[in-house]
């Protein structure tokens, strides 16, 4: 983790920046005429759109009735966004729609596809209506195009954002599942760490452990790092921080599975290993933990 470095994957996107034409003022004569046309022809334009969706083999995860129902909602939201020039309702609808259809397996290209099809269907109907008056057609399209593009953008972006949110949630869930904090005795927790420790996982691990210490009122924690894939200074630091944070909650940490190489890495970052409780293997660690807690494990002998 490099402190202070920007995350290059984040790119600011300006909504509504598609197209160069100015967004028509809501209430302008042309826009009103456009909206009126879309309302008058609502029935046949929706049907035309639904038909095109099926033709293009989009939304195959949904039934014809479902497609038509959603098409109706999208259409009405679309027209309202055109009319009012405000996009909050459309954004909310797009998120809501995405929440419903993503679990059904609908993909991004399908959502982008249907929105573009609607744009085409509506554009064609405008061509048909104003074919006799080319000048008027041009002006109507001047009003229509930036609005339609912004709407397509809003819906697609809303869908993608919802997908990303779901993916992040799933990643979080996976991280939690892969880092079990186990209570083996009263007041004793074991945290076997397996695999790669990136900064996010390290943090999640530490937070989970601290919560576990609190919930289980643990006095001793055994952290086993035998299964850690790669130990470098960053991971070693996370480990040290975890040990220190656990101590602040009154728990003693025993680190097991320390190879000589890892011990060297930890010493190299300046940690006094004498201050850290380390034991070679997990079993030894648990035994030491039990001693610290005042347990004594005695074999049961059979009477001869």
């Amino acid at each position: 983790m490099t402190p202070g470095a920007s995350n290059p994957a984040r790119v600011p996107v300006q909504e509504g920046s598609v197209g160069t034409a100015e967004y028509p003022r809501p209430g302008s004569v042309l826009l009103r005429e456009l909206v009126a046309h879309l309302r008058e022809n609502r029935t046949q334009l929706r049907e035309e759109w639904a038909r095109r969706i099926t033709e293009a083999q989009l939304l195959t995860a949904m039934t014809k009735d479902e497609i038509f129902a959603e098409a109706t909602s999208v259409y009405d939201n679309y027209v309202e966004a055109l009319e009012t020039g405000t996009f909050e309702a459309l954004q909310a609808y797009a998120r809501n729609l995405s929440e419903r259809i993503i679990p059904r397996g609908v993909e991004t290209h399908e959502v982008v596809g249907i929105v573009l099809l609607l744009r085409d269907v509506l554009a064609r109907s405008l061509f048909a209506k104003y074919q006799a008056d080319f000048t008027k057609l041009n002006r109507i399209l001047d009003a229509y195009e930036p609005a339609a593009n912004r709407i397509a953008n809003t819906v697609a972006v809303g869908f993608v954002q919802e997908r990303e949110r779901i993916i992040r949630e799933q990643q979080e869930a996976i991280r939690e599942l892969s880092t079990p904090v186990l209570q083996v005795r009263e007041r004793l927790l074991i945290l076997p760490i397996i695999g790669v420790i990136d900064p996010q996982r390290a943090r999640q691990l530490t937070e989970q452990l601290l919560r576990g210490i609190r919930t289980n009122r643990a006095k001793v924690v055994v952290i086993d790092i035998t299964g850690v894939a790669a130990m470098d200074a960053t991971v070693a630091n996370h480990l040290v921080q975890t040990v220190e944070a656990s101590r602040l909650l009154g728990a003693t940490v025993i680190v097991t599975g320390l190879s000589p190489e890892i011990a060297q890495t930890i010493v190299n970052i300046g940690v006094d290993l004498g201050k850290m409780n380390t034991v070679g293997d997990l079993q030894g660690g648990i035994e030491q933990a039990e001693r610290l807690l005042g347990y004594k494990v005695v074999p049961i002998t059979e009477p001869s």
Partner: protein
Amino acid sequence: MEVPILKQGDCLIATVQAALTDADLLHFRTALIQQVVRCRSRGVIVDLTSLDVMDSFASRTLREIAQMIRLRGAETVIVGIQPEVAFAMVQLGLKLEDVTTALDLEEGLAHLGKGSASSA
């Protein structure tokens, strides 16, 4: 804002609230030492359950408090640090070295009571 300090046997229990200013912390330090002297306490518990942020000044002051109490022959146990606060502390590099910590009031009292009746 004053930190309430209660006497329990030969121990003192101080319960810190959120939003303590630097001045409050210094006032607390003085008041606590005075109480230790007056009550001839042998143990002090500082309960940080309600503390929402620990910064470098608070951490330094708490360590000073523990040192000063030790000079009076008494032991300090800091309890109740929230998991999130503990995490922020270690990120910032605040370790509360040389200060005994325990999970909560019960554990803190058990630690101070060692040598007497069995703990929980």
